[in-house]
Every structure is written in structure tokens, then in C-alpha cells.
């Protein structure tokens, strides 16, 4: 034992000495370098830009909720945001310390969702969760309705005081915006699908009760699965 240890101990310095040049390569490799993710800046160094137009009917809500919009974008997402009054557009720009590249897109989506008509509180979910989407479609994509029928279809979709819409929203954890002929749904993919199905059935003419019962069963199943 001693011999070995001696040998080792003796060998060690000798090996160390001998292998000083080689041991560094064999025994003691330098630790792998760990590179942090590239920031947007470092990646290309370019500043990315987004411009989102503001429709006139969202002008005053934007004015009201500007700070609520601005704060998460600027502070959490680290994206510069400003309103170009002349052009009536919101402009988004990456900063140097923007952590991820995707933040800009998320902020753009967030602003776009707000412009579509969603609440800030709802649109903020886009910033926080990755897998939320906005889907838009028109009534005439489902069924061509003219005149009175169209109006009635819109009424059916909303329900009395909007309760049908709220019901669907609450059941499927989505947010729905009905803007004349266009319908926008914000939520996760599966939930969007369920909400879209119920909205389509409403457009096609089924009564609200039927839609509710279907919703109930579907969401129960979904909840079970999760």
C-alpha cells in the first residue's frame, strides 16, 4: 500500500510533472463553458420593431388603460412601447436588456389583442402564458346570413345582456369579442376549439340551452382529463 501510495504520491508529482502538459488534457479538462442565452441585442445586434395600428374605437380605451398596458410591457417584458399619435400606431422596440427574442412578439400580440377589443387584464395573459392564441373568424365563414338573420345571429351569440357569451367564456376559460361580423377568441388551443364550436352552433341556429348542455358535458370531460 505504501508503495502504491508512495508511487502515487511520488508518481503524482512526477506524473504531474511529466504529464503537466498532457495531464491537463487527460485528467483535468477545463470545465465546459456555459454560455448564457443570447440576448436580442447580442444575437444580431439589431433593434427589432413592431407597429400596431390603433382602430378609432379603441382610441379612448387605450387612453384609459395606457398605464396598465405600458407597465408589464416595459418592466417585465423589457420592451419599449410608445404611441405614435400622428400615425395612430403603437410602436414596440426591443431594448438592449430584452431577455428573450420572443418578448417582442408577445408584446405585439398583446397590443394587437387589446386593439381587437380584449380587456387588458385578459390580454396580459398572452404575455404570461405561451400557449394562448387569438383566433378570429367571421359569421359569414360559418353561414351566410343576410339582413335580419344576421342581426338575430349576433343576438343569439351574445344572449340577453351577454350572458351566453359569458357562459361560454367562463366554461371554456376563453375570452370572446364579438365585433359586428367578426368574432375573436382568446385562449388556449383546446379551449378555443370548444368555444368556437359552441359559437358556430349558435350561429347555425341552435338554442342557447342546447349549447349550454353541450358545453357542460365537454368541459366536464376536459376537466376530467386534466
Amino acid at each position: 500500500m505504501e508503495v502504491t501510495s508512495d508511487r502515487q504520491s511520488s508518481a503524482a508529482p512526477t506524473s504531474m510533472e511529466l504529464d503537466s502538459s498532457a495531464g491537463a488534457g487527460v485528467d483535468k479538462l477545463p470545465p465546459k463553458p456555459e454560455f448564457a442565452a443570447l440576448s436580442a441585442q447580442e444575437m444580431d445586434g439589431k433593434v427589432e420593431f413592431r407597429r400596431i395600428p390603433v382602430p378609432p374605437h379603441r382610441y379612448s380605451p387605450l387612453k384609459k388603460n395606457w398605464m396598465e398596458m405600458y407597465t408589464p410591457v416595459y418592466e417585465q417584458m423589457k420592451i419599449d412601447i410608445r404611441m405614435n399619435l400622428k400615425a395612430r400606431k403603437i410602436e414596440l422596440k426591443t431594448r438592449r436588456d430584452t431577455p428573450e427574442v420572443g418578448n417582442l412578439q408577445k408584446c405585439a400580440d398583446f397590443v394587437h389583442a387589446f386593439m381587437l377589443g380584449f380587456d387588458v387584464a385578459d390580454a396580459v395573459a398572452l404575455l404570461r402564458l405561451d400557449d394562448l392564441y387569438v383566433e378570429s373568424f367571421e359569421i359569414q365563414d360559418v353561414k351566410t346570413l343576410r339582413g335580419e338573420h344576421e342581426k338575430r345571429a349576433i343576438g343569439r351569440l351574445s344572449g340577453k345582456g351577454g350572458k351566453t357569451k359569458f357562459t361560454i367564456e367562463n366554461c371554456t376559460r376563453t375570452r370572446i369579442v364579438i365585433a359586428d361580423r367578426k368574432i375573436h377568441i382568446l385562449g388556449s388551443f383546446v379551449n378555443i376549439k370548444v368555444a368556437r364550436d359552441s359559437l358556430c352552433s349558435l350561429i347555425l341556429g341552435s338554442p342557447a340551452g342546447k349549447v349550454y348542455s353541450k358545453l357542460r358535458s365537454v368541459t366536464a370531460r376536459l376537466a376530467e382529463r386534466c
Partner: protein
Amino acid sequence: MAPNPSPVGGVLEPLPPAMEALERLRTAAPPYYLTPSPDLARLAREASTHLFSSLLPFCTNPLPLDRLLADESFDAEQIWHQIEVQSRPLLPVLRRDLRRFEKMAPEELLGVKVPQEDGRGGKEEKDLEAEDMEDPGEEEEILEDEQAEGGERNVRRGGGASDSLLEGNESDYSEDGRDDEDKDEDEDEDEDEDEDEDEDEYLIEHEYDPQGDGRENEDPDSGLFAKYDDFFGDKNKKSSQPGDKKKKWRSSNKLEQSDEEKESPGDTDIDDRQADDAELDSQDDETLSTFERQSRKLKSEIEQMEKENLAPKTWAMLGEVSAAKRPKNSALEVDLDFEHNRGPPPIITEESTDIIEDIILKRIREGHFDDVQRAPSLPSKAPKELKELDDNKSKKGLAEIYEEEYAQTTGLASAPLSSSDELKKEAGALFKRLCLKLDALSHFHFAPKPVIEDLSIQANIPALAMEEVAPLAISDAAMLAPEEIFSGKGDVKEEAELTQADRKRRRAKKKRKFKAEEAQKTAKKARGNKNLDRPNVSGLGNHALYVDEERSLFRLDW
């Protein structure tokens, strides 16, 4: 003197009284015959005796009797039978002769020789024949009356009457105290009373025949007043002969014919049949025994039944009969038997309605109705929690919802209460309070909680936090530990366990204690009542917890 124009000399002597008797009988008013009068009876007997004897020479066969025994001792039936015995074979002969005489011219009639045993002269013959004309006429009249009556009776009896029937009827019609003549003419009246109007008419016509013009009525050719013999001459014939039946049939046909065509004269067939019948009758007249009579009766019944069997059945016997096959309204007369599958309908009277109404009122008052109640289904398992669809605008933003969801899935936060409904919360709170109280009650006597399968969303928190093992409330009946209750030292013995020495020891101790106390008391009294020092108090408030020498705790209430 007498209506008899030329009485015969030899016979004249007994004649006048007899003829007189006849005359008187004839002229007697009908009402006299209604009541039995001995006078009329006597006359009748005389007359019948005379007639019998006068007819005797005309009888071709020798008769067992040579004179009529019609004394007072003989009753009507016997007299009648005697007459019958004579007249039966005689009648056809007389009838034949009569017909012959009718055909002949009146001048020829005078020259007819009368067959007599005495062998009288022509004049006598003439007279005789005139007399005979009369007598036989009268006799015939009377006899034919009798026969006619018999015939009438039998005509009325209907077709196919037997000989024995005829005889029986004739015997039935005899009554005590009445004579033949009376009987005959009474029978007429009896028949008037007893039988139909048709018969009455017929009889009346016949009765009002004063002088023997009955002959015209009795003309067989006319067929109007046909007698029994015209139809059924086979009174005494035996039914074994096949020809009889034919004749009987023929005679029955004849009867029908005559009934229908009363006024159609000139039936030559009747003459022939009558002749044949007369011959046959004469044979079997006296040879009838009871057995023969009975058998004849039976055979007639059999014939009747066979005739009925051959005839077409009544509609009621035909099986299935439609309305077309039976006469109108005939179903009303027949007692039809239906199988009624239902009971008779209840008869609604005032009483029944009252009863029903009483029941109804009683039920209403009691509230005891027979409503069908759904059977309560036992809750075998907890009712499924239906997710209630909230149709209000959600207060949380979408981001918050997802945040919560995420937190749940990663387990950072506790699960929120499911089905957060205000009412439910309130109900839950109330129930909790109630349960608390109940548990407090029930924890004195522990009973395990019944297990109900609850299909509710469970909060993901440790079970210990949910359940409480210790009881919420306990009685302080057993709060003190035993040693707190009693802190004694050594061996504690009961009264029963003490030995004598122990008892002595205890008593000594007691005495010492008592003495010590007494000493203290006196010392206290000596000191005075000023210093009301409390004894050693352990400092527990107003309740004096007095610590004794023996160091036992007990309370003293001031």
C-alpha cells in the same frame, strides 16, 4: 091429437104416451133443461124406450138387448150405452136409405117396402114408411143429433181423434141425474158454455132447427156441417190396418177442406169415404178392450209426434236464424238466453249517489286522497355535482384564471373551493354550526360518523388539517384525575374490611381529634371573637378551599 099423422095401430097403444112425451120434450123451453127436473127425466126415459123399441126391427144384427132398460135405477150412462149399442150399426144403414130416398121421387117413396119382422102390408108399409120416414127422421134427427154432437165434439177436438177418445169424451159428458135426451140437449148447452164461439154458432144453427130440417144442414154433399163420421169414420177400426191411416189422413184432409170451404158443396169423395168408414166402424164397435183403447190412444200420440217431427221446425229450433227467416217481432216473444259477460249495471238511485257523495266529503275533510305518489328513490350515492354555468361576466381576468390553474397544477397553491356559490356557502356555514352543536351533544356518547360517498372535489390539503381527532367537547364530570379527587395515603380499607384492632385504632384517633378540637374551641372562646382569623386558606378566591390536616382538598362555601 098428436103431430104423428098416421100412427100404426098395433104400436099405437103405447105410442101416445111416448109420443106425447117426445112432444112435450120438444116443446119444453130450453131453460127447463138447465135444471134437473124429474118430470123431464121421466118423459125422456119414456121417449127413449119407445124409440129404442121402434128402431129394433130395423137392426140387421141381433142385439143383446131387446128393449131399453131405462128405469129409474139406471143412470144416464147406462141408458146411453144401450142406445149406442143399438144405434151404432144402425146409423149408416139409415143414412144410406135416406140418401136413396132423397134421390127417389116422392111418388116412389110411398112404394118402398119397409123391412119389418112382423111383415106388415103395403098400406101399413106406407104408413110405416111414412111413419118410418118420420120416425127415422126423428130418430135420425135425434140420433144424428147425438152423432152430430159426437162428431162436433170430435171435430172440435181436432183431426185424428181416436175412437177411444171419442168414447171417453162421450162418457165424460154424462152427468148424474140427467137422462139421455137431457144429456144430449144439455150437452148442446154445455158445449155452448164450454167451447168456442165457432162451435156456438154451429150449435145455434143446429139447435134452431125445429122440425128435422137438420137434414138439409146435415147434407153431406154440402160439406157445410160435416160431422165426425164424415172425416173419421174409423172410430172402431183397429190401427193395425194400413188402410186406416190412409183413411184417417184423408179424413183429416177432408176436415181441413171442409173448414176452409164451408160453403162449397158437392164433394163426392166424402160420400165414398163415408161409406167406407161406416163399414169399418161397424166392425170394431164392440170389440174394444181397455188395452186396445190405451194402445189406440198411444198410437195416436205417436202419430201426432211423428207428424210434428216431419213438419218443418219452428224458427227457434233452426239454429242460426237471421231476421229474414223468422216472423216479425218473433224474437220478442221468445225467451232468449244470452251470455252476459258483464254483471248487471248498477242501478243509480238517490241512495247510491248519497252514499258516494258522503264518501267524497269524508275524504276531502280528512284529506285522504288516492293520488299516485312517486316512490321516493333512495339516495344510494351522493348527487352528482353539476357544474353550474355562470352567466355573469367573470371578475377575474384571463391571466389570473390561467395563473391559478397553473399554480394548482404545479401545487404551489391550494385548490380553490369548487362551486363557489353564495347560497351554497351560506348553507355550508349554517350546517357547520349545526353540526358543531350536534357533535358536542353526541361526543358524550361517541357514535361513529356514517360514511356517505361524497363525490365532491377534494381539497389537496393534509387530512389531519381536515379532521379533528380530539373531541370538541368533553364533560367535566370526569375532568379531575383520580389522584386529584382523592389523595390519601396507604391502604384504604372499607368498613366491612376492618378488623377489630383497626376499629379500635380508628376510634382512638377520633377521640383524640375531638379532644383537640374541643381544646381549640375553648381556647378560641377564651381569646374572644374579635379575631376572626380564617383558617389556612390556599388562596383560591372566595370559595374556601380548606386544606385539612390530612391534606385533603374540599370546598367550603361561606
